[in-house]
């Protein structure tokens, strides 16, 4: 029992009390329910991996967006997490490709440029014919710092860099921005380099 509680406590956003509550809930629930949960976790871990090009979640080596011939392969939108990509896809405003950094610069948590998929982004920019990079990191301290860092790395390549315009809720996360605001922000992006 304690082992189960310990495992749940390691999950993001779950404290010891919630971990205890979830564990007791699962013990009381029907056998089928915990079987399904355990199976979904194993199945997801087995089948879902990172897209080798953009580091979005994918079941194949390349994700559905990267292999879609309809997408504009000259524009890359850089986001922090797959959930941000989903939020932008929902606006239907963006037709290009993505690059998922898998985080943002965060010295407090020991995250520097090396821990993000920045080297992979730079490799993509030097290989393929990319005209524009739109930086859609979150409008908070860490997202802004990441955006500044990227702009500095990309400018020498001569590729156009823009930052998603604000108009997003101040200090909020992209995933909470309503779809209309996010769409408008994409249209009104400003140049950084």
């Amino acid at each position: 029992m304690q082992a189960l509680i310990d495992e749940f406590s390691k999950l993001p956003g779950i404290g010891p009390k919630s971990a205890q509550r979830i564990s007791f809930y699962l013990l009381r629930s029907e056998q089928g329910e915990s079987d399904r949960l355990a199976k979904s976790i194993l199945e997801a871990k087995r089948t879902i991996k990172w897209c080798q090009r953009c580091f979005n979640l994918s079941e194949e080596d390349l994700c559905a967006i990267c292999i879609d011939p309809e997408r504009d392969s000259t524009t890359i939108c850089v986001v922090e997490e797959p959930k941000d990509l989903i939020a932008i896809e929902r606006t239907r405003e963006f037709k290009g490709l993505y690059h998922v950094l898998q985080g943002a610069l965060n010295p407090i948590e020991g995250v520097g440029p090396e821990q993000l998929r920045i080297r992979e982004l730079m490799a993509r920019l030097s290989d393929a014919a990319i005209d524009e990079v739109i930086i859609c990191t979150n409008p908070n301290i860490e997202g802004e710092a990441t955006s500044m860092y990227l702009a500095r790395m990309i400018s020498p390549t001569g590729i156009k860099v823009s930052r998603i315009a604000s108009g997003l809720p101040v200090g909020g996360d992209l995933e909470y921005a309503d779809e209309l605001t996010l769409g408008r922000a994409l249209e009104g992006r400003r140049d950084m380099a």
Partner: protein
Amino acid sequence: MGVTAIVGRNGQGKSSIIEALSYAITGRSFRGAPKDSMITKECESSIVRANIFSNQRELLLELSLNRGGSDRLLLNRNVTPRRDVVRAIPLTVFTLSDIEIVSGSPAHRREFIDDSLILMGPRASETVDNYERLLQHRSHILKSLQRGDGSVGYDSLEIFDESLAIEGERLIRMRLSLLSRIEPILNELYADIAGKGEKVLTSYVPSVRTNLMSDLLDSRRDDIRRGITSVGPHRDDIIFRINGLNARYEASQGEQRTLAFSLKMALHELLRSRIGEDPIILLDDVFSELDEERIEKVLKRTKSAQAIVTTSIDHQIDEKVNQKLVIESGSLL
């Protein structure tokens, strides 16, 4: 509207009532007491539930404090960020320790000005929080460079120093702007309470020499060695002068107390003109240090507001308050 007095001998629990209310709104104790002391021994949590009439609205504020866990703050039954609650229910708290704004270390004055900025609007509040967080980021980078290990190095320092300089200078501009708006009100209030002809001047003492970015660059090597950021608004001070004399060192205790009260009251009046209504006023036991004439002037100033006053001095206030509650052994009689 009007003044409610909670009267009781020391140790009967009169301060606990307004401390609970103030804690629910601001998220901290005005005595500087730690969170665990807000929870009864051997209990896991404590709950504050308050019906508040503020800004012509009725609000239900609920806070549950959990020992060793995260707390829950609900405004009208919705989970609400602390900063939003602080601005939705403006509060002016007077306590005996306010004198430290004048007599204490620079940290007290910075805390006063930044707490005031938080009430001035979301942008100002965000600037205070951003600067604080950027300082923490920088201190992690400095320590990582000091150890010479780790993932965050000079390229992170470059980026975060730039953000720190931008937010830091914005914070300084906001503090200056707030001080210049407080000063005339402060003068009027101080003259009213202390007597005509008293002139109060405020001056901001920055730690920045040229501009924050170049100062951060200059001090970088030392900062890495010491693991701290040696320049910026978190090292600044404010000097209050009464008739030319530095109030921190050269004013009497009575003058310091009056000045601190006037400062808080000036902020109160500034907020009133911003939101169109008086913030709620809490006065914790401040009358024990004031003479009768000053108590009268203080109460006159708080008349238009909704004020709750705790005091152990019963006889002096009877005819000056609208409602009197007597407390004994933790219960209202």
